[in-house]
């Protein structure tokens, strides 16, 4: 062995190694983070940009003249339209620009906010949780370097979103300043929520609740501005409590003002130091609350794989329940206003894809229920995808080496996902019904909508089944998300954008009978149930045939 050719003892290097500060190593970590995100960041930026690009391509087709545009503007004046879209600046002279500012900006801002939350937490708390941060921090890396590198990555990612979005808008020959204001708004909302993520990352020991908390703040911000915007044209005080509202308050393409964006900057500038203070005070790997000793032995319930699963997912199910219920309650309480505006303008309901005959209230709420079912489908896919995470982190092998069979393992996951999906659907319907009860509708509406929510269960389970298939095939989950997102986009925007009938008819959420406004037709539900069973069985069979990854 050539030990003696090794370098001399490094005592001489002591001087050169000395010094360094809390930020040492940031540049290296930033380079590494960008490398790890070299696919993710462009993918998000292109995704957000293509939303606008697509809109720009389709709107002229769907709304060939000003009269057509104005019919859409009327919808956006309505509280229900404002709730989903924006404050409604420039509705009297609606154009592609004002339409993007009013209807797309909010969605794009939510997307960049979620991208930012996930990004920051992935590079901070998730690294600590995995133990990799310990190895990193044992190097010449300052206490604040990982957080600083994560925030710098955040800026890079949102700069990419800004650039792609600007390019997409300018490609549609929209006014330069207003286009830049919208792109900057989306990017800065991302930065602000990235700072929210930087704070929640300091609070919990695990990455998932940190993402959950920050994600809930994003949802809350969207709801706040939704209520605010539906209260009055141009938004009310509530709209100004939301960073997403700030981006919309630039009044792009109507009467541009830049200063609301400073509020986003200010929020980030306040939150980032909070994150630094918290990071500087705590131990690596620790949360804000000290660990408490738990139970010494497992409950009978917990030792079953499904019990374990429920235990792991309990917190997220509760959060989803609370979020959907609150949103549903608010939506339901707008029922009266929606009915009033639909009675004044029946063509609006058609454009929103809602029933125009019979009970207008029930028809409108049934259409809204569809949006909640879409959210539950997202939950179901996330819930099933947890199987893949368990496996890649090496926990599945330990379970499958016991008496638990492979189909039993998948069944135990579904034993949580299926009832939880049913619960979330019922809770959404209940919220809508209760909200409507307080304004209009009569008492029967509560029970009707709770049951109507459950009509979406077979469809939601089809998405869960697709996720099981992806897991069984080990194909990656991307194609399931493509299905989900395509269904959402067609379901949300399809009727408004005059998409071809063939596309609209294939949109699965539209296939579910919109009870209680129409008769319950069991045939599509039976087909969907069969599809869900087939997908799940195929996924299980595939899982039994393949190698375990870790």
């Amino acid at each position, binding site marked *: 062995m050539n030990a003696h050719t090794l370098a001399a*003892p490094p005592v001489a290097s002591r001087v050169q190694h000395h010094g360094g500060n809390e930020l040492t190593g940031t540049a290296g970590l930033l380079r590494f983070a960008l490398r790890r995100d070299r696919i993710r960041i462009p993918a998000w930026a292109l995704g957000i940009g293509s939303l606008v690009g697509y809109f720009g391509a389709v709107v002229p087709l769907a709304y060939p003249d000003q009269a057509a545009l104005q019919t859409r503007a009327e919808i956006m004046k309505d509280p229900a339209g404002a709730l989903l879209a924006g404050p409604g600046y420039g509705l009297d002279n609606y154009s592609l620009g004002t339409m993007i500012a009013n209807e797309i900006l909010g969605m794009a801002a939510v997307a960049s906010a979620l991208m930012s939350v996930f990004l920051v937490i992935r590079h901070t708390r998730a690294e600590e949780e*995995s133990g990799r941060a310990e190895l990193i921090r044992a190097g010449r890396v300052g206490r604040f370097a990982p957080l600083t590198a994560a925030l710098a990555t955040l800026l890079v990612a949102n700069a990419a979103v800004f650039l792609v979005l600007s390019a997409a808008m300018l490609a549609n020959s929209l006014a330069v300043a207003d286009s830049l204001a919208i792109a900057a708004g989306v990017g800065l909302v991302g930065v602000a929520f990235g700072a929210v993520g930087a704070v929640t990352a300091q609070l919990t020991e695990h990455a998932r609740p940190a993402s959950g908390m920050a994600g809930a703040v994003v949802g809350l911000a969207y709801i706040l501005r939704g209520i605010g915007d539906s209260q009055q044209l141009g938004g009310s005080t509530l709209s100004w409590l939301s960073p997403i509202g700030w981006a919309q308050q630039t009044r792009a393409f109507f009467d541009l003002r830049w200063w609301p964006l400073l509020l986003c900057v200010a929020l980030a500038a306040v939150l980032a130091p909070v994150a630094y203070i918290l990071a500087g005070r705590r131990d690596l790997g620790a949360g804000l609350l*000290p660990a408490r000793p738990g139970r010494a032995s497992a409950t009978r319930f917990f030792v079953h794989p499904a019990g374990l699963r429920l235990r792991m997912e309990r917190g997220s199910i509760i959060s989803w329940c609370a979020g959907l219920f609150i949103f549903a309650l608010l939506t339901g309480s707008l029922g009266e206003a929606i009915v009033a505006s639909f009675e004044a303008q029946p063509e609006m309901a058609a454009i929103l894809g809602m029933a125009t005959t019979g009970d207008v209230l029930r028809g409108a709420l049934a259409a809204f229920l569809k949006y909640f079912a879409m959210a539950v489908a997202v939950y179901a896919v996330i819930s099933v995808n947890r199987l893949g995470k368990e496996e890649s982190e090496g926990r599945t092998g330990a379970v499958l080496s016991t008496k638990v069979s492979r189909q039993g393992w998948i069944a135990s996951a579904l034993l949580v996902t299926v009832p939880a999906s049913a619960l979330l659907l019922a809770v959404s319907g209940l919220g809508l019904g209760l909200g409507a009860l307080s304004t209009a509708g009569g008492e029967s509406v509560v029970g009707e909508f709770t049951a109507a929510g459950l009509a979406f269960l077979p469809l939601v389970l089809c998405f869960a089944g697709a996720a099981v298939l992806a897991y069984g095939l080990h194909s990656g989950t991307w194609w399931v998300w493509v299905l989900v997102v395509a269904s959402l986009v067609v379901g949300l925007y399809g009727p408004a954008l005059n998409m071809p009938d063939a596309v609209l008819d294939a949109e699965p959420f539209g296939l579910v009978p919109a009870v209680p406004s129409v008769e319950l037709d069991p045939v599509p539900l039976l087909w969907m149930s069969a599809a869900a069973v087939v997908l799940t069985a195929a996924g299980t069979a595939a899982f039994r045939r393949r190698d375990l990854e870790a």
Partner: protein
Amino acid sequence: MTAVIDVRGLNKNFGRVRALDNLDLTLDAGEVHGFLGPNGAGKSTTIRVLLGLLRADSGTVRLFGEDPWERAVGLHGRLAYVPGDVNLWPKITGGEAIDLFASLRGGVNPKRKADLLERFDLDPTKKTRSYSKGNRQKVALVAALASDVELLVLDEPTSGLDPLMELVFQQCIREAKDQGRTVLLSSHILAEVESLCDKVTIIRQGHAVQTGTLAELRHLSRTAVVVICDGEATSVASLTGVHDVHQDGDRVLFTVDDDALPAAMAHLLPLGIRSFTSTPPTLEELFVHHYGNGVRAAAGVEES
């Protein structure tokens, strides 16, 4: 000369769990120091405090004479750390991971890296996801050993290594020692500690119950003697410091305190010794003694 590591009266609580309880630990430059204790004794916690990753509740902690919480970055340029459970990023190669860690310490010696890769038989072009446990461990070991640092902080560094690699590791540590580096080695592999360490600290429930050279620790334990004499060897039982005397055929077995051994020899010599074997306590016996019985251990000689 200041000690490389100097910990005095260190306390650390996690909520209601007392992880470290008045811990003392001293390492002089150039020393290979074994850090031993049962599971949950507080070894990893001590090391994380030394790295400035956890903040001490009370007590003084000095690394190269400085506070690791305040001066973590500067100090980390002078040490390399290997944990017992190495988690690497998927989608990068082992070679890239090594360069990343090494560059975070201020650079790697490429020749030494290549040499270590060869000795540890590690393929640096494989993606980390496909590495076995032992190979992930090797990544961290190569990154640490290839760095020009004065102190190696190793927390069960060889967990998962095969016996051949264990020997390579021991050779590398000896070389490090020859180069004048200081090593803190937490380990459950007693043979490794026995063959490498100048000094050993045994901790139990967050408190150092023994510190010293292996010889000093042995000194605290009894030597086992088997003797065959012409005369009546069982008479050694009358000496102070001689215990557990019993006869097995013509052999007489007893244990004797280290400092009573000369007297016992003097007693046996006139009896006509035909055969004599004395076995110093193995490290394992020392551990069973210390791990298993905190009361007796605490009553023993405390660290100097």
